[in-house]
C-alpha cells in the first residue's frame, strides 16, 4: 500500500465548506461575555485618562478594563524570543498608534462594540516617527531568529571591496520593500474560560498552542499544566499567529475580572499594528562580476524597521550566504527603531523581501553584462555552500531552472526591453531564483492502535490551511500499512505531545518525521506482539486484553545539520502585460519549478506553492501599509484600502514539482513548501516589468503611478 504522494483531497474539506469546522471565536460556553479592544490614537506617549464613565453606564456593559483598573498580572508578560513584548494594560505607556489601551466587556457583542466606541482616551503625546529614513542613521546590528535558531547579524567571506575592484561590471543599488500588515481571513481571536481560580481553558487562533500555554502560565504565575489551549482550525496565519499578542492576555484578564468566560476577536482595523507584519526594509546591494558572468563580489546589507520596545529582524540578507558561488560575500542586518507595532514573521520572512532585492540586482547585472539572466544564474550556481564551505543535503536547482524555463517558454523572451507587444500591451518576461531553508525542529507524536484495528495519531501542531489533517494521516497510514480511512490524526491541543510552531515551513518535515517514527515504532511493537500485516492489528490488540496499544516518539535534528546546508530551491518565471500609457500591470503567467525533497501529497503541495506564488503577486503589485506620518498611524486600515491580490489579478499560476530525494534533511525526507512559492516571485515580476517597459522599479509595490 502506498499513501504518501497520493493527491488525497483535504480530509477536512467538507467540514470547512459546510461550517462544521470550529474556529476559535465559534466555541460557545454558557455565560459568555464579549470583549472589544479600544486602541490608542497617538503613536507615542502616555495615557493620562481613560474615561469609560459613559460606556459603563450603558446596559449590558460588564466592565471596561483600563491601565488604571486592570488586574496586575502576577508574572512576567514576556518569555524568550520569539515570544513578543505585549501591551496588557500594565502601565500607561503608548508605543504605537492602534495599541490596545482599554477593553470593553459586555453581555453581547454589539453592546461591547458600542461601549468600546464610547470610551474616551486622553493622552499626552510625545514626538514620534514612523519613517525609516528618519532613523536610518541610528541603525544597529542585531542577530536574527530564523527556523527556531539564532543566526548572526553579519557574515562574510573574502574581501568584497577587492572583489568589486576586480569586477568588469558592477551593480550598486538600493532596494526598498514597504511595511505590510498581516491579514489572514480569520482575524486573531481568543476565548478564555476560567474553570477554577487557577485553571484556564483557552480557545485560540494560533500557530502554536504551547506558546500560548506558556505565555498565559507565566503571566498568571500558574503551572503550565493548568492552562489548556485548544485550536482545532485556524483560518490562516502566515506568521501572524506564531506569537501570542496582547489580546490573548487581555482576554484572560477580562474573563478573570468579570468572572465569566470572555471571547474577543480583533476587528479588521485592529489588525494594523498590534499583530505584526512584514517590516519596511531598505537594502543595499553591491554585485561585481567578470565579463563571463562569474561573480567576484556579493554584498547584501539590509536595514529593517522594528518597534521601540521589541526586536524583529527581517532576514533579508540570509540568502546571499548560501545561494551563489562567489569568493567574496558579505551579508549584514541592521534594525531601525520606530514608533510602530513590532513587525513579525510573514510568509517567507526575509527570503521574500531579500530575494526581491538580490534577484533584482542580478537582473540588473545581467543587463550590464548583456547576458541572459538565467545564464547568469547558471554561471554562478553554487555546488557547495559558499560561506560555510560544506555540501547541500540535496540540491536540484539546475533541474528547476531547466524545467521552469521549458514550461514557461523562456527562449521566447527578448533581451531588449519594450520589444514585444500583444494587443497594445507591452509584454515582459522575468525570472528569479527561489530558496528556502529545509527547517526541522524537535517534534513529538503518539500513535495508538485500537481494538477495532483503527489507529489514532496525535501531535500538538496546527491546521492553518497547510493540510495537516490530511498529510499526517497519509504519513501515518503509510507507516502502519493501513488505508487512510482507518487512521485518524488529531492536533491543536496543548495536552497532546509537543510540536514546534506551525511556521517556517517546519511542520510537515518535523511533525511528519515524528509521526513516521512513532508509527514505525507502533508497527514494530505490534509485529513483536504477533501481528503480520495490518489486517491482524485488531486481533493482536484484542488478544492482549483490548486496551489500545500506544507508542510515543520524538524526532529531532542531529549532527547532520552541522555538516550540510539544507535548502529547498526553485526557479520563478513571470510574464507581465503592461499598459504602456496607463501603467497598469497584469501578471499573465507565473511558472515556478520547485524541488523540496519528498512530496507527501502532490495536490496539497501544489496548493501551498500556488498560494505562495499568489502572495508574490500581492507583494509585487499591491501590499502596502500606508502610514500617515504626522499621525504615526496606518491609514489603510481595511481590506478596501489595504490591497492583496484579488481573483482577477491571478491569472495563470503554474507550480511544478521537481523530483528530489533527500536522505539527510529529516526522517521524512521533506523540505517544507509553505513559503518557497513566495520567494523570488516579486523579483521575477519586477524583472518582467523591466523587460516590458525598460523601467527598473526598486521600490515595491509597483503601482500604475510608478510607470507613467
Amino acid at each position: 500500500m502506498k499513501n504518501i504522494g497520493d493527491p488525497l483531497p483535504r480530509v477536512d474539506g467538507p467540514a470547512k465548506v459546510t461550517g462544521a469546522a470550529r474556529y476559535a471565536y465559534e466555541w460557545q460556553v454558557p455565560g459568555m461575555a464579549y470583549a472589544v479592544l479600544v486602541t490608542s490614537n497617538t503613536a507615542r506617549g502616555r495615557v493620562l485618562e481613560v474615561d469609560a464613565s459613559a460606556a459603563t453606564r450603558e446596559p449590558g456593559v460588564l466592565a471596561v478594563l483600563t491601565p488604571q483598573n486592570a488586574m496586575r498580572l502576577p508574572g512576567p508578560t514576556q518569555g524568550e524570543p520569539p515570544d513578543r513584548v505585549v501591551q496588557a494594560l500594565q502601565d500607561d505607556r503608548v508605543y504605537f498608534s492602534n495599541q490596545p489601551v482599554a477593553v470593553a466587556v459586555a453581555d453581547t457583542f454589539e453592546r461591547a462594540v458600542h461601549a468600546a466606541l464610547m470610551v474616551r482616551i486622553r493622552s499626552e503625546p510625545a514626538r514620534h516617527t514612523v519613517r525609516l529614513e528618519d532613523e536610518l542613521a541610528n541603525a544597529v546590528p542585531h542577530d536574527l531568529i530564523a527556523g527556531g535558531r539564532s543566526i548572526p547579524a553579519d557574515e562574510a567571506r573574502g574581501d568584497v571591496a577587492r572583489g568589486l575592484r576586480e569586477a568588469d561590471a558592477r551593480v550598486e543599488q538600493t532596494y526598498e520593500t514597504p511595511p505590510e500588515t498581516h491579514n489572514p481571513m480569520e482575524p486573531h481571536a481568543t476565548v478564555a474560560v476560567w474553570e477554577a481560580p487557577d485553571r484556564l481553558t483557552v480557545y485560540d487562533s494560533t500557530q502554536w498552542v504551547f506558546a500560548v500555554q506558556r505565555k498565559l502560565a507565566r503571566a498568571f504565575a500558574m503551572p503550565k499544566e493548568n492552562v489548556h489551549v485548544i485550536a482545532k482550525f485556524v483560518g490562516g496565519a502566515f506568521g501572524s499567529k506564531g506569537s501570542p499578542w496582547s489580546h490573548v492576555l487581555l482576554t484572560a484578564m477580562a474573563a478573570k475580572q468579570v468572572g465569566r468566560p470572555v471571547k474577543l476577536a480583533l476587528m479588521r482595523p485592529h489588525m494594523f499594528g498590534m499583530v505584526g507584519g512584514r517590516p519596511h526594509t531598505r537594502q543595499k546591494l553591491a554585485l561585481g562580476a567578470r565579463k563571463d558572468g562569474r561573480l567576484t563580489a556579493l554584498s547584501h546589507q539590509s536595514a529593517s524597521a522594528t518597534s521601540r520596545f521589541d526586536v524583529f529582524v527581517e532576514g533579508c540578507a540570509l540568502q546571499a550566504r548560501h545561494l551563489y558561488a562567489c569568493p567574496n560575500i558579505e551579508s549584514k542586518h541592521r534594525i531601525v527603531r520606530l514608533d510602530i507595532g513590532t513587525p513579525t514573521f510573514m510568509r517567507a520572512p526575509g527570503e521574500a523581501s531579500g530575494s526581491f532585492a538580490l534577484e533584482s540586482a542580478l537582473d540588473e547585472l545581467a543587463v550590464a553584462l548583456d547576458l541572459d539572466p538565467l545564464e547568469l544564474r547558471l554561471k554562478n550556481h553554487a555546488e557547495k555552500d559558499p560561506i560555510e564551505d560544506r555540501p547541500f543535503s540535496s540540491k536540484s536547482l539546475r533541474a528547476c531552472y531547466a524545467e521552469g524555463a521549458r514550461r514557461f517558454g523562456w527562449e521566447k523572451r527578448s533581451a531588449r526591453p519594450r520589444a514585444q507587444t500583444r494587443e497594445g500591451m507591452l509584454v515582459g518576461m522575468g525570472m528569479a531564483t527561489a530558496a528556502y531553508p529545509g527547517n526541522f525542529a524537535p517534534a513529538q507524536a503518539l500513535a495508538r492502535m485500537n481494538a477495532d484495528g483503527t489507529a489514532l495519531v496525535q501531535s500538538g501542531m496546527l491546521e492553518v490551511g497547510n493540510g495537516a489533517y490530511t498529510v499526517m494521516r497519509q504519513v501515518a497510514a503509510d507507516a502502519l500499512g493501513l488505508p487512510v480511512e482507518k487512521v485518524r490524526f488529531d492536533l491543536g491541543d496543548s495536552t497532546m505531545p509537543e510540536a514546534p510552531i506551525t511556521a517556517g515551513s517546519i511542520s510537515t518535515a518535523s511533525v511528519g518525521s515524528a509521526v513516521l517514527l512513532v508509527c514505525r515504532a507502533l508497527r514494530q511493537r505490534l509485529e513483536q506482539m504477533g501481528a503480520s500485516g495490518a489486517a491482524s492489528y485488531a486481533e493482536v490488540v484484542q488478544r492482549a486484553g483490548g486496551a489500545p496499544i500506544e507508542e510515543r516518539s520524538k524526532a529531532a535534528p542531529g549532527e547532520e545539520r552541522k555538516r550540510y546546508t539544507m535548502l529547498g530551491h526553485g526557479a520563478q518565471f513571470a510574464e507581465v502585460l503592461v499598459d504602456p500609457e496607463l501603467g497598469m500591470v497584469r501578471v499573465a503567467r507565473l511558472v515556478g519549478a520547485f524541488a523540496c525533497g519528498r512530496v507527501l501529497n502532490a495536490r496539497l503541495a501544489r496548493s501551498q506553492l500556488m498560494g505562495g506564488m499568489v502572495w508574490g503577486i500581492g507583494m509585487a503589485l499591491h501590499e502596502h501599509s500606508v502610514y500617515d506620518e504626522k499621525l504615526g498611524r496606518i491609514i489603510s486600515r481595511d481590506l478596501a484600502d489595504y490591497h492583496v491580490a484579488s481573483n482577477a489579478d491571478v491569472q495563470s499560476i503554474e507550480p511544478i514539482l521537481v523530483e528530489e530525494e533527500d536522505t539527510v534533511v529529516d526522517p521524512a525526507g521533506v523540505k517544507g513548501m509553505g513559503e518557497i512559492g513566495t520567494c523570488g516571485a516579486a523579483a521575477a515580476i519586477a524583472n518582467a516589468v523591466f523587460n516590458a517597459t525598460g523601467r527598473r522599479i526598486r521600490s515595491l509595490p509597483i503601482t500604475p503611478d510608478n510607470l507613467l
Partner: protein
Amino acid sequence: MRHFSYQRAASVEDAVRAGPGAAFLAGGTSLVDLMKLEVLNPSRLVDVSRLDLRGIEARPDGLRIGACATNSEVAAHPEVKRRFPVLSEALLSGASPQLRNVATVAGNLMQRTRCAYYRDLATACNKREPGSGCAALEGWTRMHAILGGSERCIALHPSDMCVAMAALQAVIHVRGPNGDRDIPFGDFHLLPGDHPEREFALEPGELVLSVFIPFSAAGMRSRYVKVRDRASYAFALASCAAGLEIASGKIRAAQLALGGVGTKPWRVPEAEQALQGQSPERVAFQRAAEIAVRGAQTRRDNAFKMELARRTAVRALTLAAEGA
C-alpha cells in the same frame, strides 16, 4: 447601544411621509457599513429596497432607470448596453459582483467618500464632524481629489457609475414633501466648499425615484476607462467616461467626465466643446484632456493624478472614436 428604528416603507408615499429626519435604506452596502463604524448614525431607517422602483424603461427620448434597480441589473440591461455602453462598463468596473447584486442606482448616486480619514473616528474630518478639521490636508492624499476641493475637504467622490451618468447628462427625478422635481446631474452632488458635510442637493425627506438618461448618438459610441491599483475591487486612481458623435470624419458632439480626481463626478463642458468640429484624433483628445484637468491642485501623494487623468481621458476618447 445606539438605537435606531427600522421601518419598511409600504409605498413611495409612505416613504416620503416617513422621510424627513430618516435615512433611506437601499442595498445598505454604503450606509450599513458606515453605521457599523459609527460614522453615520441615523436614528431612523426607512427601507425602500422593496418598493416598486426597479424598472428600467425605454421612453421615446431616453431611458428611465428606477432608483432601486441594482447595479448588476442596470449593467446587464440590453438597452443600457446598446444605448450607453459607458454606463454598463462603469458599473461593471465598480466594487465586486456580490456588492453590485445588492447595490442600487440611488444608493450608488449617494455613496459616501472612501476618504480613510472620514472612516477613522480617531482623526479629524469636517465632513464627518463639521469644524473638527481635515486630517487629509496634511496626510496621505494618494486617494484624494485634485479638482473641486476646498480648505476644509478634499475627499474624493468614489463612484464609477456617476462618472458615466455625468457624461451622459442624466437627470435625477426625486419626490419630497413638496412634490416632485428633476435635478440635473451636475447639480446633484455639491462641492465641499465651507460645508463638506452637505453632499447632495436633496431637501430633507426627498426620495430619489429614478434617473433619466437622454438618448444621444454620443452615448451609443461611449466608453469607460478605469485605472486602478488592482484588476478588480479597487476604486479608481483615475477614470474617464467619454462619448463621441462622429459625422463625416468630424466630432459633432462629445461627452466627457472624469472620475478618481474630483470631489464630485467631474464633467467639463469646455472640454466637450473643444472637441466639437475637430477630427477624432489624438491632438484633439489631448487638448480636451488638458482642459478637463484645468485648475487641478495636487499634493505630494496625488501629483501623478494630473498626468494619469489626462492619459486616461485620451484613452477613453480614443476607444470611443474607434467605436464599439
